[in-house]
């Protein structure tokens, strides 16, 4: 059974429908990528999983349990966590306080010290800068912090919304490295939304292509890499 599953999800914002009959599965221990053009509904898909959109019909099942009607904070308590598009660190808090804010759930609070050590191990730079106000971090550092903050809740599934957006090529490579390590070494399950289609398919196990709110293509990442339609649409090679 998939760790996370969307079943025929129709969702949007108030009256404005964005997702049409979206069904997708995320298997434990995998990186699953969602790719697609701007405005396709990728962010909306992740927000819907977190309970931050209007859901008209369909079901979201996590760990064998329907979470469709749960408020966002309960979903985090169950082990879902999201790194929002554009990083959105708490700019007025220090790096350390951002990390503490990520561990506010019961699930995470008791293990705060352990998780902090784990996160500082992955991102040594954050340890150096723990007393810096987050608003003054560089783009790359802020993205590291956004990922670290989401890890602080000790999630089983990490949702990443365009973690490489607006970053220098060198930093982009680092971010993809980290995502891969999170699966391979930290045993996290990852749902990754990305513009860098080629990079994403290279590290992903499975992928969905979303266009105008509908899944138009899906399959194993390695196979999708060779798909003519995808190659043409995204000019990835």
């Amino acid at each position, binding site marked *: 059974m998939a760790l996370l599953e969307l079943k025929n999800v129709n969702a949007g914002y108030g009256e404005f429908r964005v997702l049409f009959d979206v069904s997708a599965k995320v298997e434990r221990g995998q990186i699953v990528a969602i790719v697609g053009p701007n405005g396709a509904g990728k962010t909306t898909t992740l927000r819907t999983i*977190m309970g931050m959109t209007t859901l008209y019909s369909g079901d979201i099942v996590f760990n064998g349990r329907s979470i469709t009607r749960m408020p*966002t*904070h309960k979903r*985090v308590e169950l082990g879902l*966590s999201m790194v929002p598009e554009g990083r959105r660190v708490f700019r007025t808090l220090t790096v350390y306080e951002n990390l*503490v804010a990520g561990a506010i759930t019961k699930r995470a609070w008791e293990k705060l010290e352990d998780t902090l050590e784990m996160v500082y191990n992955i991102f040594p730079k954050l340890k150096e800068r723990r007393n810096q106000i987050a608003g003054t971090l560089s783009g790359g550092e802020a993205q590291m912090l956004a990922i670290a*903050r989401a890890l602080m809740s000790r999630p089983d599934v990490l949702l990443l919304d365009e973690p490489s957006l607006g970053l220098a090529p060198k930093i982009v490579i680092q971010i993809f490295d980290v995502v891969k390590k999170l699966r391979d070494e930290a045993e996290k399950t990852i749902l990754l939304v990305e513009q860098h289609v080629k990079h994403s398919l290279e590290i992903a196990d499975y992928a969905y292509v979303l266009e105008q709110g509908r899944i138009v293509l899906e399959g194993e990442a390695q196979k999708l890499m060779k798909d003519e339609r995808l190659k043409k649409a995204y000019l990835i090679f």
Partner: protein
Amino acid sequence: MISVEPMLLVQNIVNGVFMGLIYSLVALGLALIFGVMDIINFAHGDFVMIGAYLTFLLATTLLVDPTLTAFITMPLFFVIGVAVYKGIIERVLGAEPLIQIAVTVGLLMVLRNLALMIFKAEPRGVPFTVFGFPINVGPITIAASRLVAGIVSLVALFLVHMLLTRTKWGIAMRATADDREVAELMGINVKKVYAVTFGLGISLTALAAALIMTFSRADPYLGLLYGLLSWVIVAMGGLGGVIGVLASGLIIGVIEAIGISVVSAGARELFIYLTFFLILWFRPRGLFGRR
């Protein structure tokens, strides 16, 4: 300008410092609610006024010092704050600013008219307090009640500062203030944070009211005075956190004291608002403006 006796001026300024501390405490609740929830609570000053009457009632029926009534009124006001949040504020969270303003102004009218109905615009003072004696330091005389009120206010400001910077709840409150949506994504129960913030903000007015009642009287228009003062303080220093509120409160207290000494008691408000306009003229975002 009228010549002032220097010692009298010094004495008034010292008094102004203590008043400034109390003003900071009054404004702190408003700053918290505004900072975390982005709600302008126009009824803030009238909670101070209701708190003052309640202090009068409790002190005179239980025959205890007005300062001690805070042990009852603070938890009570916390509960009232949470109830007001749940019953009224939560319903208008996403609404237009104009609706939010109408709601808290409505609350102000209810509180003020309640006081007018029960107490008929009559000021009520507690006729006793253990702090009713003067303290002489050289040529300067200060009322013990103001000294105590100032010190307790400072301690309360410090405790709130520690709450905001050193505790789980405080960090949750500041994260919510910073980015409500992301706070939710982090698993913070934002509605609970709002309820606690509103309750805390209102319960601080009860503490301020108990302190004020050691040297002043309750009257139905106290709300106007403290409401406006709090707004000036928050506008001047609100974004600077507790320290900003403290600094602005002290400025207001001292300016008011100088106004009283140099011109006349009637000039206090003139001086306060002129200072306010001047500061906003040069620093439109307040003393600690960000963004």
